[in-house]
Each structure stands twice: as structure tokens, then as C-alpha cells.
């Protein structure tokens, strides 16, 4: 059996949760639909999960559910988390992104007064992309533009940001995770970030900063 997957039965045993909890969390969108993988086994159909992701998520839910209601949690895990809003000063105080990133973003999108979760996410993605050293100022702007234009349309789907470079020209792509993609040999994948992972990091940062 595939080692990166875990069956539902093993998951419940390992994390000590019940069927009811698992189904409730699924209804509340705490666990994404596309993590439920159906496979035929000798006992009929069984459900499997990506092992690492689900274990991490379940443990996080168990940790956080003491302090937060399920709906608040759902907001925290949903890519369209909208309720959080910080003042720019507070945001900068926590050193979540570099000054450079902030500058590029503001040049593109206008000066920020408050920072929503969405904005924080864009900033964080931009910051990570710049950190790789693969993209420059102008391309950062391109990336920001793409995110703010198209990411809201994706809503709940799990997507990746990809920056491709060919002959010195960069293109920004926003792709859903459902299928892998391949590029020709002259094209270089400069940046490839899973938005889901970034969201998790941003949430971590926010939680650590007490929001």
C-alpha cells in the first residue's frame, strides 16, 4: 500500500477521533473535499487521506478547538479567510514580510492602511517568491497583479502560484492543484508555491502573534 496515504480507520485510531467528528469537520470545510481519496480494496470502497497533511490538520484542529468555535476554525482554514484585519503598523511590527515586499505591493496596489488576511496572504506569497532570489521587482508586481485579479475567483479550490521564465521573460500562472504540469526544457520554473501551504504559514504567524 502507498505509504503516503492513511486509511480512514487508521486515521481515527491514530488520532483518537470519532467518525462523527471527522464528518462534522468535513461538513464545516475544515478538511478539504479533495483529501478524501476513494480506493477499491478487498472489503469494498475505502477512503484514504494524504497521510502527513491529514495528521497535521487533525492535530491542529484538536489543539485549536479548545479556544475557537468550529466556524471560527473553518474561517481560519479556508483560503478565503476574510474576518482578520490588522492595521499596517501592527502588521509591520511582527516582521511578517520584508520592507521591500511591502514597497512593491504598495507601488502596485496603492498604499495600505489596514491589512486583511487576503492581503497578508498576497504579501506573504510575494515575500516568499522574492526570497528565492528568482524574481525581481517588476516580476513581483506581475505576481501581485495576477493574485489580486484571479485568486478571489478560485475561492475554495487549492491552487499553486507558478512563475515561469523563458529567455529572460517571466510569466505568472495560477493553477489548481488537481493536475501536475510540465514545461519545455528551455523554460525554467522560477517559483512554485502551494497556496495552501502558504495559508497555513500565514495562519501560524497570525496565531503566534495572537490574532
Amino acid at each position, binding site marked *: 500500500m502507498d505509504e503516503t496515504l492513511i486509511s480512514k480507520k487508521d486515521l481515527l485510531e491514530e488520532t483518537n477521533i470519532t*467518525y*462523527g467528528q471527522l464528518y462534522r469537520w*468535513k*461538513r464545516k470545510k475544515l478538511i478539504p473535499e479533495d483529501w478524501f481519496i476513494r480506493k477499491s480494496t478487498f472489503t469494498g470502497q475505502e477512503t484514504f487521506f494524504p497521510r502527513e497533511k491529514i495528521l497535521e490538520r487533525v492535530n491542529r484542529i484538536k489543539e485549536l478547538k479548545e479556544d475557537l468555535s468550529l466556524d471560527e476554525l473553518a474561517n481560519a482554514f479556508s483560503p478565503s479567510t476574510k474576518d482578520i484585519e490588522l492595521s499596517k503598523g501592527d502588521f509591520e511590527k511582527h516582521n511578517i514580510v520584508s520592507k521591500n515586499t511591502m514597497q512593491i505591493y504598495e507601488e502596485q496596489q496603492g498604499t495600505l492602511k489596514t491589512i486583511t488576511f487576503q492581503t497578508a496572504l498576497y504579501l506573504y506569497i510575494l515575500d516568499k517568491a522574492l526570497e528565492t532570489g528568482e524574481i525581481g521587482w517588476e516580476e513581483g508586481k506581475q505576481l501581485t497583479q495576477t493574485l489580486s485579479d484571479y485568486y478571489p475567483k478560485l475561492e475554495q479550490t487549492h491552487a499553486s502560484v507558478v512563475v515561469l521564465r523563458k529567455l529572460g521573460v517571466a510569466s505568472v500562472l495560477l493553477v489548481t492543484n488537481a493536475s501536475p504540469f510540465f514545461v519545455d526544457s528551455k523554460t525554467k520554473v522560477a517559483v512554485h508555491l502551494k497556496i495552501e501551504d502558504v495559508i497555513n504559514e500565514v495562519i501560524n504567524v497570525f496565531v503566534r502573534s495572537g490574532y
Partner: protein
Amino acid sequence: MGNYAMKDLKIVGDGSYPGGNYEKVAIIGNGIVSGDVTAGEGKFTGSCAVQGNASFEIFRMVGQGDIDGDLISEEVKVAGELNVKSIRSELLKIKGFLNSSGNIEVEEMNVKGGFDIKGSLNVGQLSVNLQIAPSTVTEIGGEEITIKSRGLLNRTYRLEAELIEGDSIYLEYTTAKVVRGNDIELGPGCQIGLVEYRENFENKDSKVGDAKKI
């Protein structure tokens, strides 16, 4: 669409009207909404159809209803027959029959009658009294699941399912390949291939292929 905001849509008699944003959608008679519709309240009486997705806060229906797309609501109350692609709601109450080609996700579901759900049913509290006709569902997952068949004149109807999983499960007149849960109780008339339970298992008068404590 913005121009329609906060207006009511009323159809009395025969009529076909476009979808959009409304405060209230009321149909009496034979009405068709020819597109996606969003409203605070939806009230259908007679034979009604939505040719798209429907999103309400409260949805009440008497008679026959067809929703080609997804139904999203806080509260759904149906007396009659509802055909829908999928439902997401806090509360779902049905007296009659529900046909769904996709998944049903509700916190509390109350059925007096039956259903044919091609997808999976994910529900917090499920209480079903099987009547009218046989019911089928691919999969039920939830917390408290109660399936009974108590009708007039001692007529019983059956539920057929592939898989039922829940914390506490009580079943009557149900055929299922696999039933898994913490506490499982089988009343009369069940035929279950495999039962897997964590705490308690009680079998009053049913056929079980194999029962395992996990």
C-alpha cells in the same frame, strides 16, 4: 443583477422568470425560475422549478420541486417531492421524497418518507422514518443516525446503502454492506455484511455477516 436586489419575485399561475437576487421568491402554481437565484426566503407551492443553483436563508416547499443545481440554505422544509443536484443546509426536514444526484450535507435532517441519494449523505443528526417507497443512498456519515420504519398498518419500507458510518447508529429494515461506529444497535429487518464497532453492538433481530470489535 444589482438592480433586482431587495425586490420580490412572485409567480402566481403559469410563468417563467429570470433568476437573480431577490428579497423573497414566492411561487404558487406552475413556476419556473430560469437561472441561478438568491433570496432571503423561497416559498414554493405547486409545481416549481429552478433551472440553476438556488441559495436561500429559508426554503419551504409544498408539492413538487426541481432544482437543477445546488440548493444552499439555512433551513429547508419540504412536503412533497424535491429533485435536486445537491443540498447544503443547517436543517433539512422532509415529509415526502427527496431525489438527489449529488451529495447532501446537513447538520440536522429529519425525514418522514424516503430518499434516493446518488452521492453521499453527510449529516450531524439524522432521523428517518421510512415510508412511501424504498430508499437508497450510497453512503451515510454522521454523528447520530437513526433509521426506522414505522408506518400505518405495519407496512415497512427498506433502506439500501453501501456504507454507514457514525458515532451512534440505530438501524431498522436496512441493507448495507458495511456499518461502522462507536455504538451500533440493529432493530428488526436489517441485512448487514460487516459491522465494525468500537464500544457497543446490539443485534435484536437482524442478519449480520460478520461483527468485529475494533
